[in-house]
C-alpha cells in the first residue's frame, strides 16, 4: 500500500492553484479570490495535518515519497520531513493564507490582482518544495524557482525603487546559486557509487560518500555561498534591506518569514549534513561572520530613518544568531537555531505587517514623520509592543526561548563569539525600543492626529500570529519535543563523519539542583 502523498500535495496544491488563478476569467473576481484562498488554506490544512500526524520521538524522515523523475541522471522526486523542517513547513502553510487574505496588494486592476495571487501561490509551492526536498537537484529546482515569483512580486507591486531592488535580489541570489549548482553536480559525480551510477539523493550521498578533506571543503563552500547570500550572512546581506523596503507588505512578510529560512535551513540540511568535516573545520569563519552580522545589523538598524529598514536590518542581526547556533553544533544550540527560525518568522513577519499598516494610514515610513501614535491608537501600539518585545527576546514570548537556547548552547563551543554576540541582545532592545519611542510616544502632531485604530480585519490577521508568539513563549515544549530528536540524530551524523565531539551537555547543572 502506498501512503497518502501528503508532501507531494503540499507542493502541488499551491502550484495548481497558481495555474487556476492565472487561467481564471477576469470577469469573475470572486472566483479568482476563492480559488487563491482555497488552495492556500488547503495547503495550510495539509501542513497542519502533517504537524499532528508527525510522530514525536522519530528522528528520521517521515511521510517520505520517492518517484524517479529524470532517470538517466539519477534524479528523483524525493520528499520527506523531519523535526528540522516540520515547523518551517507549518509556518509556510499558516502564513500564506494570512498574507493572501489579509494583506491588500494594491493592484491596479483585476488582471494585476490575478497575477499577484498567482505569483504568491507559485511562491508558496517553491518554498514548500525547498523545505521538503531530499534530492539535491530537486532542491535546487525549488530554491531557484522561488526567485521568479519573488522577483515579479517585488518588481510589480513594490515601492519607488522596486525594479532596482528586485533585480538586485534576483542577481545576488543567482550568483550564489551558480556556485551551488556546480557544487551539486560535483558532489553527485564525486560521490558516484561503485557501479558508476550517479545519484542526487541527499541521504544516499550523505551516508555513503567519503570526500577527501580538501574536496569536501571546496564543495561545502560552493553550497555555503548560496545559502550565505540567502540568509543573508554578513557581508553578503546588502540586497536584503533594499528588497525588504521596496517589496509590497505581503512580499516583505514572506521574504522575512520563510524565504530567508531557506538559507539557514539549507546550511543545516545540505551544507553541514553533506560535509560535516568541512563544516566543523570552517566554524570559526561562520562564528565570526555571524557575530559581525549580529552587531552590524543591530548598529545599522539603530541608524535607519525608515521604519521598514529598521526591521530589515534587525533581520540581519537575528539571522546571525541562527547561524551562530547552527554552527555551534550542540544539540541545544541547533535546536534553538531551528526554533529561532520560526520565532523570527512570526515576529518579523508581524512587524512587517504592522509597518505596512502604518504606511497605509500615513503613506510614509519615515520615523521622523511619525509621532505619538500611542495616544490615538492605543490598541495598535499595544500589538506593536508585544510583537516588538518578542523580536527583542523578552522572556515569556517566543523570541526569548530560541535566543536563550542558542546562546547557552553555543557557549561550550564558541565561548568568545557568544560573549560578543550577547551584546546583540541588548542592542536589539536599544534599536527597537528607540524606534518605538520615537514613533509611538509623545504628543501626536497634526499629521498623526487622525491615525486610525486597529480594525477588526487587521486584528484578525494579527491575532493568530500573536497567539503563536505567546504560546511558544510560554510553552515551547511541544515544539522542542519534535525538533530535538532530529537535531540529536543530526549531531550524531556530524560526529560520525568528522572528528568533532559534542561537549558533554550542560545537564549536570540541573542534576546539582536536584541533588
Amino acid at each position: 500500500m502506498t501512503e497518502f502523498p501528503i508532501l507531494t500535495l503540499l507542493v502541488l496544491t499551491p502550484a495548481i492553484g497558481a495555474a487556476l488563478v492565472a487561467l481564471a476569467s477576469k470577469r469573475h473576481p470572486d472566483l479568482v479570490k476563492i480559488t487563491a484562498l482555497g488552495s492556500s488554506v488547503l495547503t495550510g490544512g495539509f501542513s497542519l495535518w502533517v504537524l499532528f500526524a508527525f510522530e514525536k520521538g522519530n528522528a528520521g524522515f517521515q511521510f517520505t515519497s520517492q518517484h524517479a523523475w529524470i532517470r538517466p541522471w539519477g534524479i528523483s522526486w524525493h520528499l520527506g520531513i523531519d523535526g528540522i523542517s516540520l515547523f518551517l513547513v507549518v509556518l509556510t502553510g499558516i502564513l500564506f493564507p494570512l498574507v493572501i487574505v489579509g494583506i491588500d496588494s494594491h493592484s491596479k486592476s483585476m488582471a494585476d490582482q490575478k497575477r499577484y495571487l498567482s505569483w504568491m501561490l507559485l511562491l508558496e509551492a517553491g518554498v514548500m518544495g525547498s523545505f521538503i526536498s531530499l534530492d539535491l537537484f530537486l532542491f535546487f529546482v525549488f530554491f531557484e524557482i522561488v526567485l521568479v515569483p519573488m522577483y515579479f512580486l517585488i518588481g510589480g507591486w513594490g515601492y519607488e525603487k522596486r525594479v532596482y531592488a528586485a533585480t538586485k535580489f534576483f542577481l545576488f541570489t543567482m550568483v550564489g546559486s551558480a556556485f551551488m549548482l556546480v557544487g551539486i553536480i560535483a558532489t553527485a559525480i564525486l560521490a558516484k557509487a561503485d557501479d558508476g551510477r550517479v545519484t542526487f539523493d541527499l541521504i544516499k550521498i550523505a551516508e555513503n560518500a567519503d570526500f577527501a578533506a580538501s574536496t569536501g571543503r571546496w564543495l561545502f563552500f560552493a553550497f555555503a555561498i548560496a545559502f550565505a547570500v540567502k540568509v543573508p550572512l554578513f557581508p553578503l546581506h546588502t540586497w536584503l534591506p533594499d528588497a525588504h523596503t521596496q517589496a509590497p507588505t505581503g512580499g516583505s512578510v514572506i521574504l522575512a518569514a520563510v524565504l530567508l529560512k531557506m538559507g539557514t535551513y539549507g546550511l543545516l540540511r545540505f551544507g553541514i549534513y553533506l560535509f560535516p568535516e568541512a563544516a566543523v573545520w570552517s566554524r570559526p569563519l561562520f562564528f565570526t561572520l555571524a557575530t559581525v552580522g549580529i552587531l552590524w545589523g543591530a548598529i545599522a538598524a539603530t541608524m535607519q530613518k525608515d521604519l521598514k529598514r529598521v526591521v530589515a536590518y534587525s533581520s540581519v542581526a537575528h539571522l546571525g544568531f541562527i547561524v551562530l547556533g547552527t554552527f555551534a553544533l550542540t544539540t541545544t544550540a541547533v535546536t534553538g537555531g531551528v526554533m529561532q527560525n520560526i520565532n523570527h518568522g512570526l515576529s518579523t513577519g508581524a512587524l512587517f505587517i504592522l509597518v505596512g499598516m502604518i504606511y497605509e494610514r500615513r503613506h510614509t515610513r519615515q520615523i521622523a514623520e511619525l509621532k505619538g501614535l500611542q495616544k490615538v491608537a492605543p490598541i495598535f501600539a499595544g500589538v506593536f509592543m508585544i510583537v516588538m518585545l518578542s523580536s527583542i527576546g523578552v522572556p515569556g514570548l517566543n523570541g526569548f526561548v530560541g535566543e536563550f537556547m542558542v546562546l547557552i548552547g553555543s557557549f561550550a563551543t564558541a565561548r568568545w563569539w557568544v560573549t560578543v554576540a550577547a551584546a546583540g541582545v541588548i542592542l536589539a532592545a536599544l534599536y527597537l525600543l528607540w524606534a518605538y519611542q520615537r514613533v509611538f510616544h509623545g504628543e501626536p502632531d497634526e499629521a498623526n492626529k487622525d491615525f486610525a485604530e486597529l480594525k477588526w480585519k487587521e486584528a484578525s490577521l494579527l491575532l493568530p500570529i500573536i497567539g503563536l508568539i505567546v504560546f511558544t513563549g510560554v510553552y515551547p515544549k511541544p515544539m522542542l519535543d519534535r525538533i530535538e530528536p532530529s537535531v540529536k540524530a543530526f549531531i550524531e551524523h556530524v560526529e560520525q563523519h568528522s572528528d568533532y565531539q559534542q561537549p558533554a551537555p550542560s545537564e549536570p547543572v540541573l542534576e546539582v539542583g536536584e541533588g
Partner: protein
Amino acid sequence: MFADTLQGPSVDWFAMSPLLVLLGGALVLLLVASLTPPWPKRWYAIFAAKCAIGAGVLSLLLWHQIDKEGATTLVGGALVLDKPAVWIAITICVAVFLCALVTDDYLRREGIDGPELYALYLLAAVGGVVMAAANDLIVLFLGLEILSIALYVMAASHRKRSESQESGIKYFVLGGFSSAFFLYGVALIYGGAGSTNFNKIVAVLEPTTGSDRTNDALVLAGIALLLVGLAFKVAAVPFHFWTPDVYQGAPTPVTAFMASAGKAAAFGAMLRVLLEALPNWSDDYRPAVWMIALLTLVGGSVMAVVQTNVKRMLAFSSVSHAGFILVGVEAAAHRPGAPMGGDGVSSVLMYLMIYSVLVIGTFAVVTAVGRTGDAATDLAGFRGLAKHKPTLALAMTVLLLAQAGVPLTSGFIAKFGVITAAVDVHSYAIAIAAMVSAVIAAFVYLRIMVSMWITDEEASDAAREEVRVPALLWVAIGASVAFTLAVGFFPGWLINITP
C-alpha cells in the same frame, strides 16, 4: 570513355535522402515559383515547412537504421552517417520548419512576399547538414560555403531597409575572411597529413605509429586557422564582432535562423574537425578552446548588458550561449578517444537542439513586437506588452527565463548537461565561470521582462502600431514554448535519445 578512368563512388541514395529532399525542395521552389504566377497566401511557407518535415522524417528513419546497423560512411568516405550527424540534421530541419512559419506573415507585413527566402532556408539547411556530416575537410568547406553564402543573401534580403543591406555586406566581407582562414587551415593540414579525409588524417597523424612529427608546426598552424574559421561561424569571442550588427540588421526571422540552424551546423562542424579529424591533438587545442570559451562566456554576457536594442541583446546573449556550448566542446576534448560519444558531445548536441527551439521562439516574439520594418526592436518597443498582449508577454517570459537557465525550463536542462560534462572531466573553473556569466546574462533578460511587465506606458505609446500575432506565428511560438516547458519538466526522454 570516362567510365574506365573515373570510377564513381557507390551512392547510398536512401542515406542521402534528407539532403536530397532539402535540395530538391529548394530547386523546385525556385524553378516552379519563377514560372508560375505568385502562389496563394502561405503556400511558399507551407511548402518549405513540408520539405523540412519530410527531411526530418527521413532523418528519423535513418536514425532507426543507425540503431540497427551502426554508423557508416557515404560517397566514398566523403560523408559520414552517424547519430550526431543525423541529430544535427533533425535540429536544422526543426529550425527550418519553425523559421518558415515565422517568416510567412513577416514577408507579407513587409510587402516582400516571395519564394526566395524559403528557397534560401532550404539551401542553407543543405549546407548545414553537409557540414555536420562531413568526413573530409573539403566537403566540410563546401557545406560551410553553401550555408554561408545563403546566409549572406538572407541577411540582405529585406530590400527596403538599408540596415538589412548593410548587415548582408558586413557579414559577407567578414565571412569571406573567415572562410579564407578556414581554407588556409585546410591547406596546412593537408600539407601536414597528406590528405583531407578525416580517417586518413587520424591515421597519418597518429603519434604511436611513429609518423614524423616534423610537420607539427604545419599542423598546429592549420589547427589554429581552422579554429579561427569555426569560431567565427559560431560567433565566439574574439571573432564575434559581426554578430550584433548582422543580427540587428537582418530580417528578424533570418536572425532566428542564423542563431539556430547556423549555430547548430557550425558546432556540428567544430565537433567533427576537433574530435574526428584531430583527436590526437586535443592536448594542443584544448587550452585554446578553454580560453575562447571563457572569453565568449564573459564577453557575450557583459556586452549584452549595455545594449538597449533587444535584437542586439539577444545577439550578445547568443554569443554567451555559444560560450556555454564551447564549455561542452572543451569537456568533449578531454575524451577525444570516445568516438563522438562522450558526455561532452551529447551535452553539446542537446544544448543545440534546445537552444535552437528556444531562440527561434524568442525571435518569433521579437518579429511580432518589432512591427513593420523591424522598427520597434529597442526595449521601448516591449513597453506595455503585458497589458495589450498578456499571452504573448507570458510566452516571451517563459522563453527568456529558459534562456537565463531557470529550472523547469529546457534552458536549465541544457546548461545542467553542459556543466555536468565539464565537472565530469574536472573543468571546475570554466564551469563556475559559465554559471556566473549566466547570472550576468540573466540581467539582460530581466531588463526585457521589466519592460514588458513593469515599466509604465508613455503617452506616445498609444500612437504605436498595434502588435499583431498571426496564426502561423502563434503556432511557432506555441510550439517552442511547449517544447521548452515539456523538456523542462520531463527531460528524461530527451536525455535518453541524445546520442
